[in-house]
């Protein structure tokens, strides 16, 4: 995707700058942009290390299992087809908990594991089942309790209160997830 978008951006903006005489600004931004990438990465480096370290600790405690139990009623509602499959249910709730805690690295392998277990019972190996579709839509909606990357960026830009976006993010991400699940349920219903 970026193999198309990136050159398009460069060609459009560089030729626009040459045609309309904005070359000074363009030259400045070429060098400023590389410096910005460095300074942003430096800030991200600190936060990423801290958060990954904390979450590694969390993954080694029984917190994950405890939170997984809390999700059971939620899983029953979202995945009615999987009522008897406690093993797959467990994989899905671990995937959701990892997402919520912001453990992207842990969430994806768990999610893929759940996909593989569901694929084994899929009668048509080329078509998504309802449960698989629901799992993917949930993963694209990304419910996350602490949006660490954005907080790091905000603090690198000198925000007065970098964490003040947390609550607004909860509202937005919750609405997005509800919309995604509702859409999925409706599509499933209409598809029949």
């Amino acid at each position, binding site marked *: *995707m*970026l193999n198309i978008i*990136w050159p398009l*951006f460069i060609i459009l*903006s*560089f030729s626009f*700058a040459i045609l309309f005489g904005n070359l000074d*600004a*363009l030259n400045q*931004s070429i060098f*400023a942009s590389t410096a910005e*990438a460095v300074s942003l*990465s430096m800030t*991200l480096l600190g936060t990423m290390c*801290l958060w*990954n*370290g*904390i979450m*590694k*600790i969390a993954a080694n*405690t029984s917190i994950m299992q405890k939170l997984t139990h809390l999700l059971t009623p939620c899983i029953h509602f979202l995945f009615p087809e999987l009522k008897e499959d406690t093993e797959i249910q467990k994989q899905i709730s671990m995937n959701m908990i990892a997402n919520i805690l912001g453990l992207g*690295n842990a969430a994806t392998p768990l999610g*893929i594991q759940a996909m*593989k277990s569901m*694929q084994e019972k899929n009668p048509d190996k080329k*078509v998504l089942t309802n449960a*698989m*579709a629901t799992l*993917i*839509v949930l*993963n*694209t*909606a*990304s419910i996350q*309790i602490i*949006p660490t*990357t*954005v907080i790091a*960026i905000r603090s690198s*830009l*000198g925000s*007065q*209160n970098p*964490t*003040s*976006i*947390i*609550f*607004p*993010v909860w*509202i*937005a*991400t919750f609405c*997005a*997830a509800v*919309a*995604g699940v509702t*859409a*999925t349920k409706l*599509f499933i219903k209409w598809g029949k």
Partner: protein
Amino acid sequence: MQLIQFFSNVAMPFVILMVVIYAFIEKIKIFDTFLVGAKEGIQIVITIFPTLVGLFLAIGALRSSGILDCAIQMLSPILNQFHFPTEVMPLALVRPISGSSSIAVGTDIMKTFGVDSQMGMIAAVIMGSTETTLYTIAVYTSSVGIKKTRFILAASLIADFVGIVTSVIVCKVLSMGS
């Protein structure tokens, strides 16, 4: 309003405190484990750094050449009818496609309009509340060799759209109250 501020402020310290207390009670080698995780954090940043350089270049050029303002001016009469802030449009467009480009575009918006301005807040909330939809779908479907994805692209984009609109509304309401 103060309650919202309180929740936002308490979330991160609370999560860290709970994790540390839990690990302490369960007698895990806390600091060794922390170091293992932190090392993985370095790896993530190193992996995205080259992407960031390339994309910051492209997005800086889009803005400095004047073409972005030009495009925004052309689009704003349409978007203003829906009270959607045109300035965050580039972010809304790249967010489902690429994670690192949305970091680059989002950072650019926060810097241009001010990180604590309404526009900066909207950009931050959009980034925090949505996910790289197309990438996620590709990873999950290809992992099991699925060809027919049925309705999931539509359902995920509906979720993204609702997330973006909610971000705009929440930030507008909050800045009205303060």
